[in-house]
């Protein structure tokens, strides 16, 4: 299992090469890419910020949970932080398993859990220089938060 938060460009081929074995009939790769628009507005660049220590820990937990769905520990996930341009890879997930169903389920699990609980934020820069934090997803209220 390979888990990383990094400010360096993600080497997708290395993420992919870190999974797979002669027992596996399925290898799956997902990449998240910075797109050039957000809610109808043209985006020129984004900046990802992380609560670094916690993000690494949460990403490791997510990977561990996904590995149980996968049935193997052949899973890699890397999330980028810092300044990214349109077309850059913000996240890469690779998994492998003997059969495809487990790989699809595990890969989907990782990206969906990242979306709801990884402490990472995205600042979008628009044409003209204006910038704003992407609205994001409110986490489930803390237990006993009284809500």
């Amino acid at each position, binding site marked *: 299992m390979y888990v990383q938060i990094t400010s360096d460009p993600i080497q997708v081929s290395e993420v992919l090469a870190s999974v797979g074995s002669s027992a596996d009939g399925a290898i799956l790769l997902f990449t*998240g890419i910075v797109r050039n628009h957000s809610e109808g507005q043209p985006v020129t660049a984004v900046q*990802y*910020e*992380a*609560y670094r*220590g*916690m*993000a690494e*820990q949460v990403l490791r937990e997510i990977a561990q949970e996904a590995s149980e769905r996968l049935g193997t520990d052949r899973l890699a996930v890397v*999330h980028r932080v810092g300044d990214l341009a349109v077309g850059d890879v*913000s*996240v890469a997930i690779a998994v492998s398993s003997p059969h495809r169903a487990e790989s699809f389920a595990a890969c989907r699990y990782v*990206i969906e859990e*990242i*979306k*709801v*609980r*990884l*402490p*990472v*934020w*995205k*600042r979008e820069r628009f044409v003209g220089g204006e910038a704003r*934090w*992407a*609205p*994001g*997803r*409110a*986490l489930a*209220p*803390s*237990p*006993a*938060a*009284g*809500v």
Partner: protein
Amino acid sequence: MRVRSLFFAAYRDLAGRGELDVELPPGATVSDLVAVVRRSAERLAGLPAQPVVAVNQEYAGYEQHLRDGDEVAFIPPVAGG
């Protein structure tokens, strides 16, 4: 006891700072800390009444008791991926 509050992303912009050390009575909870932080400066009153928090890098409930030296992060809605 002394607790360190951390503000990220939109909450940092709102607060005008990335961290704040807060003095709390022994036995104080996350709920107490959030209330104190929101009262401690005009800009901090703009934080949500019940933001998601993490204590020492783990998501925590509002009833959790805090200890001297704890690090409490105010976590805005997340937008990774």
